[in-house]
């Protein structure tokens, strides 16, 4: 027996993303952001996207290209503080932003990837983030119902992968990638190194390839992945 080969070219993989898709995007700041997939998505120009990402990167980087290009109607995120463009677009009403507590965003995505409908939590009670959310009582405590988040597409950045889609990550480039890689109908992973089948030890696989639909090998590590000099 042999595991299927899911490797695909960059343009063919991104061409599978339709207009109007909800797209999970890995990354926390630079590490783990799938810059190459995002650039190709900008080049192809899919519209009316809803993006889910921890942060909005910085001006001129990552998802900021999609924001500036008018491809995004809504952003579900935890923090925009490093991207003045995104804050300006939100303030002008050009971008709808839904803020989520960081760990709750991660956990909603995890639930979406785990086939669950929602999580219950006291995080955000008595703050603006609780407004309009369903509240239930359990064990005498009031808890918010936070719906699971499952998307049409997930864009993942891996350090190492094999053609079946088994993934491993580097340092703090993990962040949202492992949870997002389980929580979409179409999971596209870009990888810095593509090993042959068997080239990743089963012990080091962090995301099993059964969750992943397409693997794109990066032909180069562009400047965007590098150290940001501030």
């Amino acid at each position, binding site marked *: 027996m042999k595991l299927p080969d899911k490797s695909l070219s960059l343009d063919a993989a991104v061409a599978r993303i339709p207009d109007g898709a909800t797209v999970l995007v890995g990354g926390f700041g630079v590490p*783990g952001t799938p810059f190459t997939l995002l650039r190709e998505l900008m080049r192809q120009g899919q519209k009316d996207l809803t993006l889910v990402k921890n*942060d909005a990167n910085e001006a001129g980087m990552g998802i900021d290209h999609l924001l500036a290009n008018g491809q995004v109607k809504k952003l579900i995120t935890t*923090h925009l503080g490093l991207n003045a463009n995104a804050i300006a677009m939100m303030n002008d009403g050009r971008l709808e932003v839904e803020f989520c507590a960081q760990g709750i965003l991660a956990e909603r995505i995890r639930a979406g990837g785990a086939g669950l409908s929602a999580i219950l*939590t006291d995080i955000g009670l008595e*703050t603006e983030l609780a407004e309009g959310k369903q509240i239930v009582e359990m064990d005498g405590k009031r808890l918010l119902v936070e719906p699971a988040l499952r998307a049409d597409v997930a864009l993942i950045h891996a350090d190492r992968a094999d053609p079946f889609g088994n993934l491993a990550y*580097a340092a*703090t480039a*993990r*962040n949202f*990638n492992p949870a997002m890689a389980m929580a979409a109908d179409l999971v596209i992973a870009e990888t810095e190194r593509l090993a042959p089948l068997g080239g990743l030890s089963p012990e080091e696989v962090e995301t099993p390839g059964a969750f992943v639909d397409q693997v794109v090998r990066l032909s180069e590590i562009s400047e965007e992945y590098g150290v940001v000099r501030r």
Partner: protein
Amino acid sequence: MDARTRMVARAAREITPGMVVNLGIGLPTKVVDFLPEDMPVCLHTENGMTGIGPTLPDEEADRNLIDAGGAYVSPIPGSAYFDSTVSFALVRSGRLDLTLLGAFEVAENGDLANWKIPGKFSPGAGGAIELAQKARRVAVMTTHTDRKGNPKLLSRCTLPLTARGRVARIFTDLAVVDVTLEGFVLRELADGVSVKEVSEATGAKLILPDTDIPRF
């Protein structure tokens, strides 16, 4: 040492051996530079690391290794990397002994506002809601007043809250102030600062202790 540096150095003394600590974005991350090298302490960052080592200059940085504020950090023997779900499992389950956070406003009842100035600057809370709600002890580091001289320590917060009633102590460039059931209590004064100056810069009643007020 300028007032800001003294505040950071004083806040660093809040960290005691054996603690698991999260340092928030901005001023709190500067605390690292004032921790003794041999201090047994576990620093956590919400983007997925425990055992944060010294910050590195750009030339030595690993592009895949940052803290939540985007600074390039280094591992130390025993460091661990993990994803965001694990990182916040650690926060929400009560494993953090202390978090130091920045603030737009802090109230005398321990309320904290640090994520949204409606219509002006709404960066979002990142991990601050969970840190403020679930760390065993929450301390704030902030300048005593904003850039226009308005007090940031208030009787009630006016901005949208991050968490209610969770702040225990506030480190500022002027003073160390505790949040008690009675309200703000002045615990320490920065060198060269008078009680009157601190009172005037505080937007709520400032209770003075009966004992001497130490300097830092």
